[in-house]
């Protein structure tokens, strides 16, 4: 240890550090700790794969036994007890996949009864507790459980989950709520939809469309009463896939609303409902100063196959905006023979010619 004073303490000879006070012992301990950690990690790397495969195999075996018991109970019409499932496995991610598997295998009223009792006694209490969890992965389990079997008693929890901060929990909760189809649920979904931006509102619409049919009545009522343009927009977006004459009348009122998005939704809604009465107001919109309105009105007229719009639509081919030209040409093609003839004519404008040729190659029914 004496030669430290001569040789310096660090890489080079330096005065301030050249004392024997430098903590070599600490460094030695650090080194020992470091290399023992490395050793432990190396061993962990080697054993983790066999260990994890062993445990997952054992878990799968236990779950398979449980599934077998359930199947026997369903066939022999006896009561089923969950006592055979260890408490560690009484969890939503383990049980629900098994239920789904059995659902695919047998169709039996007795099984439905057993399933319902398992949900009532085991899964719903867990899910209700997890609803207020701080971990989103647990809230998503809860909502997955509610989604699988919809029950009015869970409405409170579903409405709570609908205001969640994680998008996927919200969407799943919207699915559950739409399945219940009560007035409160529908209004809550619409309120959430109002708060979201363009991409994020799409799942709410899908949820309402795939949900219970009674929700459309509540939507219609809300469209009639609510004056808020955003709420009207949300309602119209959903109802455009479920039109009737009354909704068409309501939508026609919004064709000249101040909000552009609401106008677009109204045009779309009219485009989904075959009624010759609505052709005239749509044709008037083809000369609107806003290009989005022109494009979408043209598209709606194409869907409606409004033959009287032929000349107006063909004049759209000269529009300065590409999307308007494209939609005009597509609408002409949808009109049928007359429109296709118009497209095949030689266009004087080069861009019009280009778009007409392109649209003729497209298969619009794909």
């Amino acid at each position, binding site marked *: 240890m004496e030669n*430290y004073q001569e*040789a*310096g*303490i*660090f*890489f*080079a*000879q*330096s*005065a*301030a*550090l050249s004392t024997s006070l*430098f903590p*070599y012992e600490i*460094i*030695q301990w*650090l*080194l020992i700790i*470091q*290399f023992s*950690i*490395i050793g432990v*990690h*190396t061993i*962990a*790397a*080697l054993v*983790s*794969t066999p260990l994890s495969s062993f445990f997952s195999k054992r878990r799968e075996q236990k779950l398979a036994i449980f599934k077998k018991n359930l199947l026997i109970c369903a066939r022999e019409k006896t009561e089923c007890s969950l006592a055979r499932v260890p408490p560690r496995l009484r969890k939503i*991610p383990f049980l*629900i*996949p098994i239920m789904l598997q059995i659902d695919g295998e047998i169709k039996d009223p007795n099984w439905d009864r057993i399933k319902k009792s398992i949900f009532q006694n085991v899964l719903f209490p867990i899910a209700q507790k997890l609803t207020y969890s701080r971990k*989103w*992965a647990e809230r*998503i*389990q809860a909502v*997955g459980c509610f*989604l*699988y079997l919809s029950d009015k008693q869970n409405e409170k929890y579903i409405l709570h989950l609908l205001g969640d*901060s*994680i*998008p*996927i929990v919200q*969407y*799943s909760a919207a*699915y559950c709520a739409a399945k219940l189809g009560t007035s409160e649920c529908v209004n809550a979904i619409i309120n959430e939809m109002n708060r979201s931006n363009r*991409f*994020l509102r*799409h*799942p709410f619409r*899908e949820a309402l469309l*795939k949900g219970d049919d009674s929700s459309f009545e509540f939507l219609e009522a809300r469209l009639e009463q609510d004056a808020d343009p955003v709420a009207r927009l949300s309602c119209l977006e959903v109802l455009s896939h479920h039109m009737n004459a009354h909704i068409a009348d309501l939508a026609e009122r919004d064709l000249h609303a101040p909000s552009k998005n609401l106008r677009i939704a109204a045009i779309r809604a009219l485009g989904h409902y075959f009624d010759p009465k609505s052709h005239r107001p749509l044709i008037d919109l083809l000369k609107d100063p806003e290009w989005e309105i022109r494009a979408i009105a043209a598209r709606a007229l194409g869907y409606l196959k409004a033959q009287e719009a032929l000349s107006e639509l063909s004049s759209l081919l000269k529009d300065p905006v*590409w999307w308007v030209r*494209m939609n005009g040409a597509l609408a002409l093609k949808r009109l049928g023979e007359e429109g296709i003839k118009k497209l095949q004519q030689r266009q004087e404008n080069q861009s019009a010619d*280009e*778009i007409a*040729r*392109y649209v003729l*190659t497209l298969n619009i029914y*794909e």
Partner: protein
Amino acid sequence: MNENIFLSIDLFLLSYFLILNGFYGLLLILTNPELARRFQEIKANESYKLLLFNLVPPVSIIIPAYNERETILASVTAALQIEFSHFEVIVIDDGSTDDTFSLLTTTYQLFPVPPVFPSILQTAPVKHYYRSKLYPKLLVIQKENGGREDAINAGINASTAPFFIGIDADSFIEPDAINRLMQHLLTKRNICAMGGTLCIVNGCTVKKGKITEAKLPPSFLGTMQVVEYIKTFFFGRTGWNKLGGSPLISGGFGLFNKQAVIEVGGLKKMLAGDLELTVLLHKHMHEKKEPYVIDYMFDAIVWTDVPQTYSGLAKQRKRWHSSVIDVCWRHRRMIFNFKYGVVGFLHIPYLLLGEGLGPLVEGFGYIYIACCFFYGVLNITFFWYFILIAWGVSMFLTIASVIMQEVFLRKYISSRQILKMVFFAFIENFTYRPLTVWWRIEGFFRFFTKNRFMREKMDRSLSVK
């Protein structure tokens, strides 16, 4: 006098080492919450399946190709068979001089469609657009040569989805990679960009664009790079998610919000278009003062081809390093600027001091120690302690990353592969690392020469049909 100079150099080297490795340790600690999050996502996997997956937004996969006849078909095949419902594949032939385009034409039965896509971003002129008779989701763009970034911009113009993924023409996307990204997209708001892991395909068995068996490459440099990639991608990038977003989304595999990319003007025509884009996105979002997320997902995988020869690897590393310096130089005003928050105080300084100047300090340290030894003033005992500590730290980081890949990726899991990787971690510091330091120093000085914007063609060692 001399003593003071030596002392200050000593202290500088030691403090640089401590700060950088302390930061790496911090990153490793911050990786843990991300891993826990991933565990939760895996647990909730069944619940994701309960949802109909068609409510996720569609995605465009953009593949720029320039003279890639060996790999283009396998790469496009892999992209066309991903497990995701709403996607389109856009292949851009960037004026190839070999038969890349004719291969595509004959394989996918392409037919021309008129040029009707609006040109939002400026690119080199596009010659033709083609669609395939076999796959309606495939669009091929033939354009004049303008570089990789220019080709991606042309792809952005033609894409119809709100998000796009850029992958290289020599990469194979894993079938469930997009699902993984989408799970993340559904659990966070304001996603601006997301990155994924690049794994090395050399040595693996590829059948019809699918990796059937993951193996370590036979060559020394190849295996070294596998270990290096696992280390960089696992502990080096995942921890950044908690520190305000990843500083680099690799151009080899990254998902971007199209709107945000268009707002910053697309990819810039320079060497490191991906690094520049990531920094620009950070900058733009801070200027807009909007919340944003630039995250890195460690278990979405793309398999890529890496150089296997000494000269090829040297070229690649020189290019990377000079482009890092280039980007830091362009954004020098962001350094320690309050306007850019954590990005100005952490990301860019890290890129400059940790990545950019790191090899210079390290190279200087090697020379300094050699000089000290030569003049007999080296404290041998301390030197050995220091070497052991440095060696141990880097080995620990590598082995921790190997465990993470074993748990989450499950690609290299046989005990033979793991032992091999641990052995390579053992010898990395004495063999591979000095080499990369040397290349990166060369790259640093190449930044000051005129040919820094040269992009060399990589030597293909891989040929997949």
